[in-house]
């Protein structure tokens, strides 16, 4: 295989096809629509199921039903669409069947806009649906990594009978980059033992998320938690850049991390010792590595395209050992490399202790900047 120039959404959809997805159920929404369009073209060609449902609520429940048959199934949508799906997602989690859900995030809350955002961090990483469940969340930062993540997402979903969210922002869905698609995987002919496939000559499998007796529900929830602990032990993924001798660590994911890596390159040329920790799994979070980094660096700068959501996880792990500063853009605005470079310089020269919520100081600076932009 050689590298091709691939558009994010189309490449992600084709990656799912190559990974053996047998059913796609969705509803179009910018900036993820090309994902569904690619599925609409390709799935019927391959004799696989494609349904454009009447709503996101219907689509996720189709995913739920189809997942119970043991086939690889998925949906893809964008932020408001994910909100509509949350009930179904919780049912899938409670039933312990695998499903892969791609979220190409846009600006919010509410109808918001179609510009790129990371504002769904809480919703995706902390669950979003009701009840005690723990989704796996992958946050790739390039078209190639997203292709690889989607294939991996199916394997993880099946291994842990879990929801796997693959989250990117609108930039990633819309951009073109050289990338290589994997070869087409064989579709397994045998169903997993838990699947509902018709109970001829065997005891019926019962898949449900109803446990009327709280004791049974507690047993189930404990099983989910134990499975999650296995995920935490085995599946943490992250990437580092220029951290070896770093005195300042930037923590960022997805597009924010990419932009930050450009700024880090420029800051390094100015002699500022700054590096990057980029979580690829947002859940499970790379806690152990961040813990080590907190012992090494003097300062941490968290960069996000939201109001400081992952910041909470960083503060939780760092526990006040080093000062943490925050820089975010919200509402569908992607920070530019120069903005982050200015932040790196500021944090490098302004070595004050940060007390309390790092967002306070950032909010004041942002407000000034926004007013400045208006003039």
């Amino acid at each position: 295989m050689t590298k091709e120039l691939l558009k994010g959404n189309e490449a992600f959809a084709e990656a799912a096809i190559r990974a053996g997805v047998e059913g796609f159920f969705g509803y179009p929404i910018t900036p993820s629509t090309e994902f569904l369009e690619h599925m609409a073209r390709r799935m019927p060609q391959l004799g696989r199921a494609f349904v454009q449902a009447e709503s996101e609520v219907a689509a996720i429940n189709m995913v739920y039903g189809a997942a119970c048959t043991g086939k690889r199934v998925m949906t893809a949508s964008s932020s408001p669409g994910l909100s509509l799906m949350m009930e179904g997602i919780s049912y899938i989690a409670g039933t312990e069947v695998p499903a892969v859900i791609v979220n190409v995030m846009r600006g919010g809350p509410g109808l918001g806009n179609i510009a790129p955002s990371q504002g769904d961090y809480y919703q995706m990483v902390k669950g979003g649906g009701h009840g005690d469940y723990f989704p796996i969340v992958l946050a790739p930062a390039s078209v190639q990594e997203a292709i690889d993540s989607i294939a991996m997402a199916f394997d993880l979903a099946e291994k842990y009978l879990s929801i796997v969210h693959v989250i990117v922002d609108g930039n990633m869905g819309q951009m073109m980059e050289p990338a290589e698609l994997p070869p087409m995987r064989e579709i397994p002919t045998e169903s997993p033992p838990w699947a509902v496939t018709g109970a001829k000559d065997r005891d019926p499998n019962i898949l449900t998320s109803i446990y009327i007796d709280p004791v049974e529900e507690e047993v189930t929830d404990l099983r989910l938690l134990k499975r999650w602990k296995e995920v935490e032990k085995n599946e943490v993924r992250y990437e580092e850049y220029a951290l070896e001798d770093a005195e300042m660590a930037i923590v960022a994911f997805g597009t924010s991390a990419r932009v930050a890596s450009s700024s880090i390159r420029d800051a390094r040329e100015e002699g500022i010792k700054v590096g990057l920790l980029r979580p690829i799994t947002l859940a499970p979070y790379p806690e152990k590595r961040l813990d080590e980094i907190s012992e090494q660096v003097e300062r941490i700068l968290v960069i996000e395209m939201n109001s400081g959501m992952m910041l909470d996880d960083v503060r939780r792990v760092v526990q006040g050992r080093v000062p943490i500063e925050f820089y975010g853009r919200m509402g569908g605005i992607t920070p530019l490399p120069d903005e982050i470079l200015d932040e790196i310089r500021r944090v490098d020269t302004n070595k004050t202790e940060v007390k309390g919520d790092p967002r306070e100081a950032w909010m004041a600076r942002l407000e000034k900047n926004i007013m400045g932009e208006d003039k």
Partner: protein
Amino acid sequence: MKETSIIISGFGGQGTLFAGQVLAYTALDNDLEVTWIPSYGPEMRGGTAHCTVILSEERIGSPIVGNPDIVLALNLPSVDKYESLITSGGMLIANSSLFNREIEREDITSLLIPANKIAEEIGMARLANMIMVGAMVKLNPILTMEMVKAGLEEHIPKRHRKTLPGNFEAMEKGFAFAEEAMG
């Protein structure tokens, strides 16, 4: 070559996204790292459209830039928007068929090219975009004319193959204009 950022901007329908894709495919064929990212907002539906192309020999970080190295501005709003943002020492190629003002920046290379007029002269009014690309490869041969022609030939969809000679001619006209203008 560290990294070169190019913004191609104009009205929807002027082929700005396509021109950017031609550069991106050409970069791919020549083993460069490349990103292409469009404006995909409501502006795609009738207003302005632009794309950012970044070429590099190394892994590319940010796919967007605040200060592009090269801007191909196909209309006046694009000139107004980007003239002040181009990096010092960068380049602005502007379609002077659609506006009548001077370029004020003196620390950048600027070229006013009547791309619509030239396109109409060769009977292909819709190829102003490729005339601008032709001028760009003359002024900054980060991708050469041969490379871009080969890239276009390799990647143009079958149904559009008949437009290849026209695209080539448009690029050559733009190249020749830039050659003459810049001496």
